[in-house]
């Protein structure tokens, strides 16, 4: 079953220009009261690397698709809200079993 992050990775792979949404979100969230600014700064570097090199871009896609606990933890702070449409998210939401 694909996760939201899998779908984000698939869409970024098709349209890397969407990476800018991640940077815009990070700027907005850091300027607000986000509880984990250091995670956002970590993500900012990952997105910048993805924008500037093919290697960085492939690392980002691999991170989004990785199921290891460390990657999933970082993925909880992924800044790609807005990359997927509501309809695209709904397909995953309908399959999702919620847990604490």
């Amino acid at each position, binding site marked *: 079953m694909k996760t*939201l992050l899998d779908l*984000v990775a698939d869409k970024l792979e098709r349209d890397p220009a969407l990476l800018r*949404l991640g940077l815009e*979100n990070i700027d*907005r*969230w850091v300027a*607000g*009261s*986000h*509880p*984990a600014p250091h*995670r956002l700064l970590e993500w900012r570097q990952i997105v910048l690397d993805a924008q500037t090199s093919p290697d960085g871009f492939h690392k980002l896609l691999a991170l989004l698709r990785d199921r290891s*606990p460390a990657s999933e*933890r970082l993925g*909880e*702070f992924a800044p*790609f*809200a*807005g*990359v*997927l449409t*509501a309809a695209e*998210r*709904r397909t995953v*939401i*309908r399959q999702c079993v*919620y*847990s*604490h």
Partner: protein
Amino acid sequence: MLAFHPELGDSGCPLELTADADLLLEPVNEAMAETLQVALGRDSAFMAETGFCADILRPEIEATLPAGWQSRLRPLSDYDNVFALDPYDLAMVKLVLGRAKDLDLLRALMRSRALNAEQLQERYRQTPLGEREMFSAGRNLRLLLKEAGTE
């Protein structure tokens, strides 16, 4: 936990990384839950704007909560009809699940004294659990108490 210990969300504290909230609405049906999840959930427009999101829980989640949890709900100040799970009921759920992130959270909450080891043991003793859940929670509790030097 943040409802009763907002200081735990400060920088360097156990809940500083919490950017989402689990919400169980009553009444709720699947269509409403899905609509709210789309509107407020992870990667929603709401999250893009605010950096925060919500998970809309389904009533089935109640089966995973300790018996009698409704009677221990704690009202949130300034709201007429909003309640938070008792912190020790939340801890019991985390003890049963026992994932690394669950145990990390419990360690941090015990260190910060948001959870008291004796009260946690008492809640464990009082909570009816299936055999598998009792074994898992007991093993995880012993581990945490041993690490905390209170076993």
